[in-house]
């Protein structure tokens, strides 16, 4: 691929003129604010089971109370926090591995490249969800362990994306100059190659968060996490059996809406960044 | 066999706030067996014309004028009617051979496809014929079963040609058929095209490759910003251009048998755009302007009427931006120029000189056309210098008349001699004798300006002197400027003379052995600078030299002198490669160690 990454001047202004970017950014800002402000927004402990079950929304319980006597709004905020945290941790870890592998693969080429890329191919073919289900049901590890396992399964897409761009970068004169000056591989990768591809990381990060949030919601929906852990997916699966009752609009709907907003926010960010840096980089969408 | 012609064909592309004029009232006729070449820079509209012949213009194109195949009017045909004609009667080879075949289909199947669609052949029949066609153009039929990326560029181009000819169309449009090919393959494909034309196919050759056009075409049309600016018989293109643009183009070719250094066209390749400014930001009526790189918007507004080439023309006059030239007959060419093509800068008619009984110069005719370099070569005493001095107005002929820019030189009133002096720069043969020893370097170079433009301010004078010195790579330090000629070596002095000749920015430079005293390194730089001035300002040069090597590097035309006569003259390419006069042949043999290459064509 001949695409070049030259972080152009005035990029910020151009991004702010893109409705997709603005929508995605403001949505994610809104959701992050919800999480940060949750102690002030909801006074209730999401784990407190001491309220009247199935109570409709009131001034005290904005979204009412669920079947277990827990405040739904407090649950919702806690769930959002956990889901988002899972997404961010997975994406950061996955991206970090992806960057390292991608750059190393492009820089060293030869055997290193062959081996790393074959491993990436195979990981791409393994259904990550199956590994997670197996681990979760046997060992019931903490969500962070699962996040890291998911990250270690989900790096290949970004690694391949970064590698394909870094291959072109490798032959640029300033890299050759750094090499001639005696820079070590680690120095060149860290000081020169890594910063050059920055926009790629943004794209990869946004689409990875999206993927991880989706996975977390699905896994918790399937009941693979600790049942007491709050999560948007778990809330949906808890509320789903009662969909025929009137509680659906204040119990079932809010987590669905929040989850959709969360995934949408990162989708829009990824789409917008991708269009800016190179419309050909559809590969970022593999996540 | 029919005729394919376009009349008054105009194409404009609509974009958001402007319209791009790709073709402007172009007339063209294709006939069986003839190769018509269309040359021009990128953006001149060549490809648009080719595509128009197959109805392949994008939806944003507005077409007016006629495209006729025999008696059938093509413009305005419905897509299905076009499809009936395409490839069967008119085929096309697109630019970018590598991208012209579908990467996911085998070569043979793509070559065979028209047979299946137009003739309804079965797959096996079509494949057999395709194999035959591939073999016919010298390709291994096994190659047909490969995919396009498994085939080399030359083979791909041949396969495309085979595909274009598979239905034996009456006309073929070839868009850059040899771009990106090595010269061997290029030659083979060129010969094949010629054969196909001789067999009766009418060809439209679109190329920026003038050499190819010259080698193949029966007639050449030069396209500039959508207008045909010169139409000429093919072989005349490199030797006898009539339009200044064609001259500049012909100098841009790195041909094998040309020796002259590459020139170019002044300015930039441009597009021609019609647009309106949004309300409140200048002119709101639709107006034309040119788009090039790094030119500000205001600078490139085209005159509403007038010659399109004006901004890049070195001989434009006021009239050129007010009146539109028509395509008119001129010496067997048809050109679009108000000044009748390249103007004659200087014409000497029957000039002769005798000193006592000795004929220094027998009656001689010499014509210098604007922007060309004419080299007079010959041994010493052949009359070169005499002729040059007469051209410069420094020596009166006994007989004959001299006309500079349309005015007879000998009957000029005295006050007009400044005009002559300002427009003709002279570099004399012996630099040491050509300057006063009482003047400093600065004063020597400033002298012509002081004489001709006495009211020029001190700063302006300094600036122009410095510019002239810079042109010839001389120092501008005060210490150097105050030196006197005897303190300079011959090389520096000769460069001072060149600077003096150029300081008035003349349009005609007459130079008698201008670089004889220079080191090779400096000589190269000075000559390069002179050639640059020629591109930028249209400088005409009459160069006297005994150095054939120099002549072949700079000359457009060469005149060989012997005993007061010009024994042979002609375009440098022709004269150096195929000398006709025995004396020229002798001269050439003396100059080159190895024999002259055998004629190419």
């Amino acid at each position, binding site marked *: 691929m001949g695409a070049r990454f030259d972080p152009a001047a005035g990029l910020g202004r151009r991004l702010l003129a893109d409705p997709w970017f603005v929508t995605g950014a403001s949505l994610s800002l809104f959701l992050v604010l919800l999480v940060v402000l949750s102690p002030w927004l909801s006074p209730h402990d999401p784990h407190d089971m001491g309220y009247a079950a199935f109570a409709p929304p009131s001034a005290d319980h904005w979204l009412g109370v669920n079947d277990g006597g827990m405040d739904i709004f407090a649950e919702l905020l806690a769930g959002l926090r956990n889901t988002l945290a899972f997404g961010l941790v997975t994406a950061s870890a996955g991206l970090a591995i992806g960057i390292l592998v991608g750059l190393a693969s492009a820089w060293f080429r030869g055997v290193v490249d062959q081996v790393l890329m074959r491993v990436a191919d195979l990981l791409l073919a*393994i*259904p990550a969800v199956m590994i997670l*289900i197996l681990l979760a049901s046997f060992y019931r590890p903490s969500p962070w362990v699962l996040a890291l396992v998911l990250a270690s399964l989900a790096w290949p897409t970004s690694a391949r994306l970064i590698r394909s761009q870094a291959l072109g970068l490798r032959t640029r004169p300033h890299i050759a100059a750094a090499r001639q000056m005696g820079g070590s591989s680690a120095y060149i990768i860290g000081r020169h190659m890594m910063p050059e591809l920055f926009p790629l990381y943004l794209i990869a990060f946004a689409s990875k968060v999206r993927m991880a949030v989706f996975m977390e919601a699905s896994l918790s929906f399937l009941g693979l996490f600790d049942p007491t852990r709050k999560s948007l997916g778990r809330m949906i699966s808890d509320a789903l059996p009662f969909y025929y009752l009137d509680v659906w609009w204040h119990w079932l709907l809010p987590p669905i809406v929040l989850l959709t907003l969360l995934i949408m926010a990162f989708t829009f960010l990824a789409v917008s960044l991708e269009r800016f840096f190179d419309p050909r980089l*559809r590969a970022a969408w*593999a996540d | 066999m029919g005729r394919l012609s376009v009349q008054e064909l105009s194409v404009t592309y609509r974009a958001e706030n402007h319209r791009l004029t790709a073709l402007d009232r172009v007339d063209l006729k294709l006939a069986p067996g003839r190769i018509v070449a269309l040359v021009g820079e990128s953006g001149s509209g060549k490809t648009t014309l080719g595509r128009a012949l197959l109805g392949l213009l994008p939806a944003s194109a507005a077409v007016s004028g006629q495209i006729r195949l025999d008696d059938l009017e093509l413009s305005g045909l419905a897509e299905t009617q076009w499809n009936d004609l395409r490839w069967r009667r008119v085929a096309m080879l697109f630019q970018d051979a590598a991208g*012209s075949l579908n990467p*996911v289909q085998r070569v043979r199947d793509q070559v065979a496809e028209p047979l299946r669609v137009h003739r309804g052949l079965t797959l096996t029949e079509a494949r057999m014929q395709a194999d035959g066609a591939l073999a016919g153009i010298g390709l291994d039929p096994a190659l047909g079963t490969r995919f396009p990326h498994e085939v080399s560029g030359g083979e791909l181009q041949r396969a495309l040609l085979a595909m274009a000819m598979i239905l034996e169309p009456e006309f073929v449009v070839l868009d850059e058929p040899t771009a990106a090919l090595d010269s061997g393959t290029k030659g083979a494909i060129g010969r094949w095209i010629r054969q196909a034309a001789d067999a009766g196919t009418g060809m439209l050759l679109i190329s920026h490759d003038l050499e190819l056009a010259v080698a193949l075409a029966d007639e050449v049309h030069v396209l500039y910003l959508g207008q045909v600016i010169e139409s000429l018989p093919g072989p005349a293109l490199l030797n006898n251009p009539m339009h200044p643009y064609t001259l500049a183009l012909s100098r841009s070719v790195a041909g094998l048998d040309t020796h002259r250094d590459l020139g170019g066209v002044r300015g930039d390749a441009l597009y021609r755009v019609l647009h309106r400014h949004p309300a409140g930001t200048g002119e709101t009526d639709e107006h034309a302007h040119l788009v090039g790189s790094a030119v500000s918007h205001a600078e490139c507004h085209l005159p509403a009427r007038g010659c399109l080439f004006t901004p890049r023309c070195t001989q434009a006059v006021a009239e050129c931006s007010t009146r539109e030239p028509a395509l008119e007959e001129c010496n067997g060419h048809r050109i679009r120029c108000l000044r009748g093509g390249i103007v004659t800068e200087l014409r000497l008619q029957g000039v002769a000189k005798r000193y006592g009984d000795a004929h220094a110069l027998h009656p001689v005719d010499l014509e210098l056309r604007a922007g060309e370099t004419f080299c007079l070569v010959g041994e010493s005493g052949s009359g070169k210098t005499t002729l040059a001095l007469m051209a410069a107005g420094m020596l009166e002929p006994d007989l004959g008349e001299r006309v500079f820019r349309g005015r007879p030189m000998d009957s000029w009133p005295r006050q007009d001699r400044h005009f002559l002096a300002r427009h003709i720069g002279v570099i004399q043969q012996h630099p040491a004798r050509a300057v006063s020893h009482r003047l400093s370097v600065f004063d020597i170079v400033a002298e012509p300006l002081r004489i001709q433009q006495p009211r020029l301010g001190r700063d302006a004078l300094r600036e122009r002197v410095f510019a002239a010195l810079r042109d010839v790579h001389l120092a501008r330090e005060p210490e150097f400027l105050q030196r006197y000629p005897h303190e300079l070596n011959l090389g520096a002095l000769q460069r001072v003379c060149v600077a003096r000749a150029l300081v008035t920015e003349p349009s005609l430079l007459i130079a008698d052995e201008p670089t004889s005293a220079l080191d090779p390194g400096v000589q190269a730089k000075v000559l390069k600078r002179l050639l640059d001035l020629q591109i930028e300002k249209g400088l005409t040069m009459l160069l006297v030299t005994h150095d054939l090597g120099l002549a072949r590097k700079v000359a457009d035309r060469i005149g060989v002198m012997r005993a007061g006569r010009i024994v042979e003259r002609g375009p440098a390419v022709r004269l150096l490669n195929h000398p006709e006069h025995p004396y020229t042949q002798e001269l050439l043999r003396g100059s080159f160690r190895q024999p002259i290459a055998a004629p190419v064509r």
Partner: protein
Amino acid sequence: MLTWRGHLLAYLLTALVMVYLSYRLPGWLPGDFVTAMYADSHVVLGAEQEAALRERLQVDGGFGSYLLALARLDWGTSHAFRVPVSDLILNALPWTLLLMGGAHLLATMLGFVAGVEAAWRRGGRIERTSVGGMTVLQGVPEIGTGVLLLMVFAYHLGWLPAGGGATLYVDHGFAERALDVLRHLALPLATLLLAWFPGNFLLARASMVLVLGQSFLDTARAKGLPPIRVRYAHAARNVLLPMATRFGLRFAFMVTGALVVETIFSYPGLGTLLFNAIGARDLPLIQGIVLFSSLAVLGINLVLESVYARLDPRVRVYGRAL
């Protein structure tokens, strides 16, 4: 680049690793694995069962005999259902194949055609709105669409059944039976379609737009080919590779969505089976389903590897474009 045989070898090795993992995992559980496995399971083991289980897990003939047992379809016994795991999987499989296969087929074909046609009409208002709409739709997860569709069409409008794969205990003729299955299929299928179609559409459109700028299409048009042939035989064929590549890259993640959708609609496929197994901590069943679906996904990817080169001969030379 690996040859086809190289791919086969690599995939076989991966499959072996997966099988080995599933074989070793129970042994790595802390403490007495039987107690650990069933400590907080809903399943109450009878003493007899526990003894049988211990025997089965301890009479360990090594990895080789485990493999043999797998090949003989001896995948263990579900404790919640007290039926062989293989029976459960084979019963659920047709439903999953029907749902996922149908959704993939429709999403890919519709996405391809719609994307190609949209790119062909690029610049128009319909194209712009559809690209915008599909981008938005791409941000809606299966859970969201599934639950909303369930509520609107099954509960509020009551047009379609809320769950299951077919109406049970009713004696239908073939046509009625087929219609019944289709009615049950409609909602989960629509959910998956909404989730998968936008990505396919956007990719097909973007790839097609790139293809449309290439000169072989000029050649194709100049040959006087009928428009439909230019569009599909020449242009759209080049869109197949990116679409297949995306399918391969995303397939492993799409499985997750299918699991969720089956669960939402209690569709009697592998997803619901897995959900129930997880709920009951029915470990042999979980293990069986995970292993089975992993191998199936690997198999499909292996098939895809051979398809890439057929779709675009350049892959053989340059390797799959990312």
